[in-house]
């Protein structure tokens, strides 16, 4: 099939970008979306022009590096997958595809379609962990954790940190991402010691990074490639408000 691509090109963080139009020819429907871009890039490179820069790495939907906003939706038209798992059979011959980077003040564009998501790392650094040193931990089976709790924790922990939630949210809110981490540890017995501190510290950092606030539109949940649910946001609200109003703990 043949396609028309409108791709955001921007040299670096400090320059203004604009859309360029490319033709993608002889695209097989077995290609992944990124392989389609490889083909386009190959052609651009042969012309001696600068290929389109986009982030990608594992290409199996787990590293969270790929991040394209395709025809108005993060990771494109199919639900519960990342861009690298999106295949061209989801498009039709002659279609025009608009490809943009994630748009958020907290995610500045580095080049073309790649954005800087280090804000996510800083939020995790603020408290997204359980403080245990290596060694000296008790036997793994010493605390039984009900299967439902373990599964619930897993469902939150499965977040790949791609940022589609922020990209999808009309407010560029990072609540789903932060909620997932807070919820994972809030459910587990290991996470209790630092529970209140964690919620406060991570929300404070989230706000500092300039993400918007959650207005519960649910766009994040709908676009999340690994199906992180809105209940993580409810948990985050509960954890944070509980920590602030019912029993505040000093964050250190």
């Amino acid at each position, binding site marked *: 099939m043949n396609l028309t691509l*409108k791709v*955001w090109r921007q040299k670096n963080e400090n320059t203004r970008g604009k*859309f360029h139009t490319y033709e993608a020819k002889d695209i097989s429907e077995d290609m992944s979306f990124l392989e389609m871009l490889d083909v386009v890039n190959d052609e651009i490179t042969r012309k001696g022009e600068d290929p389109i820069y986009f982030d990608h790495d594992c290409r199996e939907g787990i590293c969270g590096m790929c991040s394209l*906003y395709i*025809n*108005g*939706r993060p990771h494109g*038209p199919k639900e519960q997958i990342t861009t690298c798992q999106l295949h061209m059979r989801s498009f039709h011959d002659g279609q025009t595809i*608009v490809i*943009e980077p994630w*748009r*958020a*003040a*907290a995610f500045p564009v580095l080049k073309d379609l790649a954005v800087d998501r280090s804000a996510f790392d800083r939020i995790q650094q603020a408290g997204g962990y359980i403080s245990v040193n290596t060694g000296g931990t008790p036997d793994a089976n010493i605390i039984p954790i009900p299967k439902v709790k373990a599964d619930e924790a897993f469902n939150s922990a499965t977040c790949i940190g791609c940022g589609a939630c922020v990209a*999808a949210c*009309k*407010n*560029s*809110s990072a*609540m789903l991402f932060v909620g997932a981490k807070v919820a994972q540890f809030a459910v587990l017995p290991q996470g209790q010691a630092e529970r209140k501190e964690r919620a406060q510290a991570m*929300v*404070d950092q*989230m*706000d500092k990074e*300039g*993400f*918007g*606030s*959650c*207005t*519960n*539109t*649910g*766009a994040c949940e*709908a*676009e999340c490639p690994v199906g992180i649910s*809105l*209940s993580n*946001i*409810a*948990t*985050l*609200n*509960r*954890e*944070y*408000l*509980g920590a*602030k*109003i019912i029993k*505040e703990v000093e964050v250190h």
Partner: protein
Amino acid sequence: MSRFNQLFSSTIGKKLIMSLTGIFLSLFLVVHLVGNLQLFKSDGGLAFNEYAYFMTHFAPIKAISYLLYATFIVHALYSLIITYRNRKARPIAYASYNGAANSTWNSRNMGLLGTIILIFLVTHMSNFWYQYHWGDVPYVEYTTNIQTGETSVRDIPAAEFHDFVKYIEDGSEIMIAKDLYKEVNFSFQSWYLVVFYVLAMVALGFHLAHGFKSAFQTLGFDHNRYAPLIRAIGFWIFGILIPLLFAAMPLYSFFVVNS
């Protein structure tokens, strides 16, 4: 920054304010609706006018009404503050945006819906609240025969009377009050006001269909059995039933009382 400030300057804290004020306003709507249902009584406005007097003169309710005005203002103000931040969080908009694919229209347009409701509120308050308090509303005298229950109605020019009275005389109960009922029906003679009211109620329905459940989500309410109940109440009662009943009032007035 004080602890208190810290909470309410956080994004979640601000949303908490939206949530609490929103829930309070929703509750007010229920009370308001119950009272206004008297409009559907064919008693010449007796019950409605008595209710109007009660609501404006009973001290605790008066106090709550001031809280209510403040709540409206805070709810609107914080929506502006939150919207400002949210706009700033995305300085460059998407060229191609397909919000319909992942969220409902009303959830993305709460600000627009809220603005319509605000305009409605101003109109509504100036039509009735202002008129009732400071306008030139006529008085009405209801004489009800206690034995038969029959009521006769007599208009009293505003110049003759300035208070509310209710007493029993000669086996009849007599009540003289401001005739807000008449004022209401007078206003709804204009079809465009009726249309505006109905549209505003549609906006209210959309606003609450998202707002009510959203308020609980913001509070962190997430029970696997009761959260769906909240969502159902939000949609069916606050999103549909309440706005429908409110919208029925101007329509009833226009098509039934005034015709």
